[in-house]
């Protein structure tokens, strides 16, 4: 247990790194940040974990998020599992994971049922059509924002990889696994070669 392994004596002032939360507290905290998370859960997750509960420092949070970002799958879902397990073992991981997923999944299922029933109603069709126009705009903005640092650095190799994936997936419509099985090793090799050249 972390409290036993502290090198200092029992009366040493411990920096307020709060006690690990219970499994139920983990479930509730993740349920809350998930349902509050309009427009992405990451913002609320950082706020709750770092600022509110002080379960992690900002650096620890960034490191954990970076790990979950480079692994495949929904980042924030991966983060819930890794984070919960770090604090409370596998039970903690499962608590955070289910807390994050199950409440919004129930909301989503209810919306899916409504859509299945009323999706063909003309007014709803028009409204959803308008909302999806805006939603696609947000996705485009997201892409541009992520591209900006590559453009600023004139990172030609990365931009070329980006364009190849965009064309093969978006225009040619090749299956994603096929494209990535080639693109991932190529991109890693290119990145490795570029970094070696820079540092040499």
């Amino acid at each position, binding site marked *: 247990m972390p409290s036993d392994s502290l090198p200092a004596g029992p009366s040493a002032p411990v920096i307020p790194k709060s006690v690990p939360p219970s499994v139920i507290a983990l479930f509730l905290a993740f349920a809350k940040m998930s*349902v509050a*998370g309009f*427009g992405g*859960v990451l913002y609320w997750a950082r706020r709750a974990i770092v600022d509110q509960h002080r379960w992690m420092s900002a650096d620890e949070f960034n490191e*954990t998020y970076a*790990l979950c*970002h*480079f*692994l*495949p*799958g*929904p980042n*924030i*879902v*991966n983060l819930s*599992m890794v984070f919960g397990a*770090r604090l409370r073992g*596998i039970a903690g991981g499962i608590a955070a994971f289910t807390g994050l997923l199950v*409440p*919004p*999944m129930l*909301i*989503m*299922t209810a*919306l*899916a049922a409504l*859509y299945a029933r009323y*999706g063909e109603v003309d*007014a709803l*069709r028009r*409204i959803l*059509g*308008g*909302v999806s*126009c*805006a*939603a*696609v*705009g*947000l*996705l*485009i*903005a*997201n*892409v541009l*924002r*992520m591209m900006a640092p590559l453009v600023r650095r004139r990172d030609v190799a*990365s*931009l070329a*990889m980006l*364009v*190849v*994936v*965009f064309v093969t*997936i*978006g225009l040619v*419509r090749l*299956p994603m696994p096929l494209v990535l099985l080639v693109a991932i090793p190529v*991109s*890693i090799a290119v990145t490795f070669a570029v970094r070696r050249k820079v540092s040499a």
Partner: protein
Amino acid sequence: MNPNPNPVWALVSTFGLLSLFAVGGANAAIPEMQRIAVDVRHWMTDKQFSDIYAISQLSPGPNVLIVTLIGYAVAGILGAIAATFAMCVPTAVLAYGVSRLLARQTGSRWPAIIQAALVPLSIGLMGAGALILTQTTDRSFVAAFVTGAAAVLAFATKLNPFWMFLAGGILGFAGVI
């Protein structure tokens, strides 16, 4: 093609495999989800897919829950649950395993290299997703204008996305788009 007797199994195998290729998160998997749901399996039309994308953006929770909506459309409540867990459990287990592994040996520069190498790929995938969705949503001049305006506003300002969804919804309801 052999008829698949069990749609729930089709959902589980589809999303279980797809999640392992979702580099950069759920939005990077949009093009492949659309390709499978609309073109390969014929689970829904492209209009239904873009509706579902809009609903998933409007609702609370992680973006990945678009698979809950697809799962429900295919096989009801059981399909919704099966699709969600198939998309989320394998990679969460993988992330747990890797985090345990990395906890022991730090200082390796490979995670940083792999991460840097994956960034352009996930941006390319998200861009492809945007392109595919615009082909469904932006079939009129006004619709394309709304998408463009939302893109510029979201890129250049800190305006809450809610207002853009609201504006899009009102214009849609009014029949302008």
